[in-house]
C-alpha cells in the first residue's frame, strides 16, 4: 500500500503552462478522482505521476520515495487508458503477461497472477482471444487486468469508461468500486463525468486550467463548493445563480431586485464581507421545494412556469425568480404546463454564496 504526493509540480509544454505549482497528498488506500473539463490538465497530471512525462519542476513521491526521475515501471503503478491500449497482435493472455515477462518473473508466477486477475475480472474464457475479438467492456476489463497482474499499490485510471456506452459504463463503474473495496489500494481516477466522480471517490479534486480548485469529499464539494466554478461544474441540472448584493450591518442579507433574503443562519466562510458587496447566491434546482412543501421554507414565492422538461423520475421546470432565470425540480408525475403558477420555496442556509469578483465562497 502506498501514499502518493505531488509537491509544487509544474509542467509546461513549450510556453504553454499546463500544470502550475500543483500540490496533492493522497493517503494510502484512498480513491481519489481528478475531475475537470476537457483540457484542464487531468491526464497531464496523471502522466506525470506515472512517469510518462518529464516534469518541468517539482517532485513526486510514491510511498515516501522520491520517484521524480524514475522510470514508469519502477514506480509501482499500474495504468488503465481510455482507449484500452491493448496490444493488438497479442492475445489477452499475452497482454496480461507482457509486463511480467519484461520484469523477468518466473513462468509459474506469471501463470498464477494471470489466473487470479482473470478470475477477479471474469475474463477467463477470453484469455486466448485477440483484442479485436472482444467487446468494448471486455477490452476495458482486460486493460484493468493488465494493471492488476502487476501487483502494484497504486492504480492510475485515465477516463477508463469514456468509450463505453451508458449501460456498460454504469456496470463497470460498480465493478471498479468493488475492486477498490477488495484490494484497498490507492487509486487515482481521471474523469470529466461528475456522476463517476461522485459515486467512486473518497475525495474529489476539481481541476481547472492546471490547478486544483477544491479537494474534498463528494458531499462537501456538492454542498459547500469552494467557488462558483466548482458549484456550476458539479450537479446536474446546473445550480441557479442569482446576482445581487449584501446588505445589513453584518452583511448577512442578500438583496436581489426587490427580494431580501436573510442569511442569518447561513454558515459563512472566513472570506471578508462588507455591506453593499456584490454577491451571487447559488441555489440547486433539487433544493427548491414546490407547492405545499414550499410553505415551510424561509423563502417563498409564486412563479410562472415557462418551460417544462420531463425527465422520467422528475421534471425540470424553467421559470423566473427576481427577474433572473431560475430552474427547479418537481415530481416526475407533476402535471404542469407553461403559464401555470407554482409556489416555490428554498432554504438559504443550504444555498451557496459567492463573491461576484473573486467568485470565492462567502
Amino acid at each position, binding site marked *: 500500500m502506498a501514499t502518493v504526493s505531488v509537491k509544487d509540480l509544474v509542467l509546461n509544454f513549450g510556453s504553454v503552462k499546463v500544470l502550475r505549482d500543483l500540490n496533492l497528498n493522497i493517503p494510502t488506500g484512498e480513491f481519489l478522482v481528478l475531475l475537470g473539463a476537457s483540457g484542464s490538465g487531468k491526464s497531464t497530471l496523471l502522466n506525470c505521476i506515472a512517469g510518462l512525462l518529464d516534469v518541468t519542476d517539482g517532485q513526486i513521491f510514491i510511498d515516501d520515495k522520491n520517484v521524480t526521475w524514475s522510470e*514508469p*515501471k519502477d514506480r509501482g503503478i499500474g495504468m488503465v*487508458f*481510455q482507449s484500452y*491500449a491493448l*496490444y493488438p497482435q497479442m492475445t489477452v493472455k499475452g497482454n496480461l503477461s507482457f*509486463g511480467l515477462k*519484461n520484469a523477468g518473473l518466473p513462468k509459474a508466477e506469471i501463470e498464477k497472477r494471470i489466473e487470479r486477475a482473470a478470475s477477479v475480472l471474469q475474463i477467463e474464457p477470453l484469455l486466448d482471444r485477440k483484442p479485436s475479438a472482444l467487446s468494448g467492456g471486455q477490452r476495458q476489463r482486460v486493460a484493468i487486468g493488465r494493471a492488476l497482474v502487476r501487483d502494484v499499490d497504486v492504480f492510475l485510471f485515465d477516463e477508463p469508461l469514456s468509450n463505453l456506452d451508458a449501460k456498460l459504463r454504469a456496470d463497470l463503474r460498480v465493478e471498479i468500486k468493488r475492486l477498490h473495496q477488495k484490494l484497498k489500494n490507492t487509486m487515482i481516477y481521471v474523469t470529466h463525468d461528475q456522476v463517476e466522480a461522485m459515486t467512486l471517490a473518497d475525495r474529489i479534486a476539481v481541476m481547472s486550467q492546471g490547478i486544483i480548485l477544491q479537494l474534498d469529499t463528494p458531499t462537501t464539494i456538492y454542498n459547500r463548493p469552494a467557488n462558483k466554478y466548482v458549484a456550476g461544474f458539479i450537479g446536474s441540472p446546473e445550480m441557479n445563480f442569482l446576482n445581487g448584493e449584501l446588505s445589513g450591518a453584518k452583511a448577512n442579507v442578500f438583496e436581489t431586485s426587490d427580494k431580501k433574503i436573510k442569511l442569518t443562519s447561513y454558515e459563512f466562510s472566513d472570506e471578508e464581507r462588507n455591506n453593499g458587496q456584490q454577491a451571487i447566491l447559488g441555489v440547486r434546482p433539487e433544493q427548491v421545494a414546490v407547492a405545499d412543501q414550499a410553505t415551510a421554507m424561509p423563502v417563498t414565492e409564486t412563479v410562472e412556469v415557462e418551460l417544462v422538461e420531463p425527465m422520467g423520475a422528475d421534471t425540470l421546470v424553467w421559470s423566473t425568480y427576481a427577474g433572473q432565470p431560475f430552474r427547479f425540480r418537481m415530481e416526475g408525475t407533476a402535471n404542469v404546463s407553461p403559464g401555470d403558477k407554482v409556489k416555490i420555496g428554498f432554504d438559504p442556509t443550504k444555498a451557496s454564496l459567492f463573491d461576484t469578483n473573486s467568485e470565492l465562497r462567502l
Partner: protein
Amino acid sequence: MVDSALNNAAEPRGPKPKRAFSRANIFIYGTLLLVSIYYLLPLYVMIVTSLKGMPEIRLGNVFGPPLEPTFQPWIKAWAEACTGINCDGLSRGFWNSVKILIPSIVLSILIASVNGYALANWKFKGSETFFTILIIGAFIPYQTMLYPIVIMLREIKLMGSIWGLVLVHTVFGMPILTLLFRNYFTSIPEELFKAARVDGAGFWGIYFKIMLPMSLPIFVVAIILQVTGIWNDFLFGVIYTKPDTYPMTVQLNNIVNSVQGVKEYNVNMAATLLTGLVPLVIYFISGKLFVRGIAAGAVKG
C-alpha cells in the same frame, strides 16, 4: 392526403433500381478502356517483338503476332549479349543488381524505421529540427551531390564497388523512408506506447514487440518504394560502379545502345522486359498490401 400517398402502389419502394448501361457508365468504361490500351500497347509490341526472329522483324509488321515464336532472343539477352569485353549478357548485371538491392533495402529500411520510430515516439531536444533537416535533404538536387560523393567514396575506398553503391542508396533513401515511418508510427495511438512503457518495455522492446508487429503494411510500402527506386536507378549505378559491378540497368543500356553490328530489336526488347521483371513481380505479389499501407499512412489520427 397522407392516406392517399400511403395507398398509392406506384410510390417507390425497396431498393432503387439501377440501370446497367447508363450513359455515365459507358463513358467511364470507355475512358478506362482507352487508357489501358494506351498503356498496354507498347508492352504488347515489346512482347511480340521479343518472340520474333530477326528476319520476321525486318518484314516491318510491328503489331503482328510472331509467326514462328522463338525464345532465342531471351536466351541471348540473358546469357550471350556482349557489353564491352564481357559477353555473358544481362545475367551479370542481374546478379550485381541483386547484390546491390538486398543490402540496400535491408539497411535503409532498418535504419529509417528506427529513425521514424524515435522521431515519432521518443522526442528529444532538437528532434523536430533534425527531422526538418532530413526532409530538406530530400529536396536538394542529386546533381549537386554527385561529385562530392565520388570524392567521399574514393576516400573510404568504396568507389567502384557494390558496397559503395549500397551506401549511396541507403543514404538517399533515408529522408523519404524516415518520413514514411515517422508518419505511420505517429498514427499508432500514443496510449499503446505509454502502456508498453508502464509494462517495462524499453526503446528496443517497444520497437520489436509492439511497433514492428503492427507495421507490416508500411514495411511493404517501403520495400516496394526501395525495390523500384534502386532497381530502376541508372545514374548512381553508372557513376559509382565500374563495368564489373554495373547494375542491370546500366548493362541494359550498354546492350541496347551498342553501336557494333546490326540492331537486334528482339534481343533489346527481351533485355528490357527482363530488366523490368523484378519490380513488376514485386507489384503483383504485394499490390494489395501496398494500397493498404498507403491508406494507413494517409489517414493519420
